[in-house]
């Protein structure tokens, strides 16, 4: 049974920090899904948690080393046992669900050798709203600020 213990932004931030520090070569990652929303909250200093915990971080990457690291964080891995969540690499194709100009609004951050790109909360929420996901739009007691 997959663990479902991803609630706080620092969990995502800590993993990215560790990943960026451990890379041997520069690498790039796009973060989407609930973990990306958590990252935004953490990046903005918002102390909150998902009302319903997530079990997965969804990255997209074209860097072999990052993909290799993520393959050691899959469902059922020791990583999942330690952290309570796993990594699910997403194909680049999924970016077609976003607005064509999502990159114009994305956050960019350098974390060690990792270049992280995270679509804006508005762009992240659009596919979730289309799917009617129950977790969208709220962290803690309030809604995710969209600006």
């Amino acid at each position, binding site marked *: 049974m997959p663990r479902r213990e991803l609630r706080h932004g620092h969990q995502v931030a800590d993993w990215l920090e560790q990943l960026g520090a451990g890379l041997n070569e520069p690498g790039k990652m796009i973060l989407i899904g609930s973990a990306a929303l958590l990252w935004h909250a953490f990046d903005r200093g918002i102390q909150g948690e998902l009302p319903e915990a997530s079990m997965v971080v969804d990255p997209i990457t074209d860097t*072999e080393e990052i993909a290799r690291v993520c393959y050691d964080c899959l469902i*059922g891995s020791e990583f999942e046992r330690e952290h309570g969540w796993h990594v699910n690499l997403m194909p680049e*194709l999924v970016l077609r669900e976003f607005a064509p100009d999502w990159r114009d609004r994305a956050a960019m951050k350098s974390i060690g050798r990792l270049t992280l790109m995270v679509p804006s909360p508005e762009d992240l929420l659009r596919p979730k709203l289309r799917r009617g996901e129950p977790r969208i739009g709220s962290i803690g007691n309030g809604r995710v600020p969209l600006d």
Partner: protein
Amino acid sequence: MKDLVPNYGDFAKLQYGRMLWKLPAMRERLLQHWADPRHPHVERFQKWKGEVERLLSTEQGQDDDLDAELRKRGLSLRVVAREIPSVFGSFF
């Protein structure tokens, strides 16, 4: 019948499978994992091994040619991509 919604899992297995296939150590690790008796699709993979290895060895830019050739044999790129086994972290 063409799928209306992309199966992102299949696309991910192809995209990242190809990426890691270029690394000899990871290629070996994947092959051992898929041949492990604990893998739920071990028998199915033995049947599709040749096609899957060929697909993972092919560059994305050759997909149209590969798909056309597979279709002559009653297969397709999508059919073979679906046969790329999953990776289970508990014994990978």
